């Protein structure tokens, strides 16, 4: 058991038809809690967010580093639909890893592609139980990509181990033409690998193995 505190952003999206709005912008099908990549027209990642319904609203938990790009991407496409975005990052801490025995009152838990996620109000002052090194080791041993390492804005979802987050049947979304062509032609380019050390150009280095992005 262990939890790492992420450098995450949390955007609370409010308004009508939120699922439809977000679903049209993500490679994954958004109809409830899930992890969803948002991509540009060239299929490169803007951010990969955990989608968590909160009452009538939706919380998007993504990378703090990419928050401004995501806000810009979403806000340009609201087009008078009465949707608002509130940044609640400063009110909460986000932890990821393996579920602890007990969850503090007031925390929200979510089953993320990256692991078991817990969002705690800062007032709880929950402390992480994993260092970044321990989280990295866990990721390497379980081939889990993560923000800033494998997941960067110069990569598409297929190249950083997020192929399960590209829905094969859903309709149009930004970047679909490119991703569908890659999949149907079997040409997804570089992919994520886990190999025994030493690994050249590793994206995450573990004790015995490392993750890297390279052509097969």
């Amino acid at each position, binding site marked *: 058991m262990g939890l790492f505190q992420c450098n995450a952003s*949390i*955007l*609370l999206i409010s308004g009508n038809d939120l699922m439809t*709005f977000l679903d*049209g*912008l993500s490679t994954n099908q958004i109809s409830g809690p899930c992890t969803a990549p948002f991509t540009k*027209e060239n299929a490169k990642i803007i951010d990969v967010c955990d989608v*968590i319904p*909160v*009452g009538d*609203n939706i*919380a998007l938990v993504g990378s703090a580093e990419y928050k401004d790009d995501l*806000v*810009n991407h979403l*806000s340009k*496409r*609201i*087009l*008078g*639909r009465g949707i*608002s*975005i*509130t*940044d*609640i990052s*400063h*009110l*909460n801490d986000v932890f990821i890893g393996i579920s602890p025995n007990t969850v503090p009152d*007031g*925390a*929200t838990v979510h089953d993320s592609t990256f692991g078991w996620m817990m*969002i*705690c*109000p*800062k*007032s709880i002052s929950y402390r992480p139980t994993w260092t970044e090194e321990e989280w990295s080791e866990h990721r390497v041993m379980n081939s889990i990509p993560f923000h800033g390492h494998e997941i960067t804005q110069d990569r598409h979802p297929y190249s950083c181990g997020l192929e399960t987050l590209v829905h094969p049947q859903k309709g*149009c*979304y*930004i*970047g*679909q*033409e490119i991703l569908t062509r890659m999949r149907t032609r079997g040409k997804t380019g570089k992919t994520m690998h886990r190999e025994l050390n030493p690994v050249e150009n590793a994206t995450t280095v573990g004790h015995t193995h490392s993750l890297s992005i390279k052509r097969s």
Partner: protein
Amino acid sequence: MDCGTCDSASPVIMVQPDAVEVNLTMTNKAKEMLEDAFGDDRSHALLVGVLSGGCSGYMYDLQIVESTDLPCQELNIGGFRVLVPSASSHLLDGIEIDYVDRLMGGGFKINNPNAASSCGCGESFS
């Protein structure tokens, strides 16, 4: 999760493009098809809007409506009422509405000088 329902969180200030005065043209073929659709009834209007989504980011949205709650600019093109939502006016200024007579992929088409690219089916643009 603290959702910021108190004053501790304020909405992100989103930079929205200013509404522009839309110039819009329609080909004769498109007018003919609208004539067929509307008949003599001019109480309805053609709503030309933009939705988010599609392969390229934005999708055209054509509807025949009696009225709409959206703040709109109302134009008169060839005797037809055309409504353009103000929120998407910056994306629609200068467009030409055409009608393509084809068994596959036919129907109303929009030629948009603002579009940097469009997807293969022609329904979305960026």
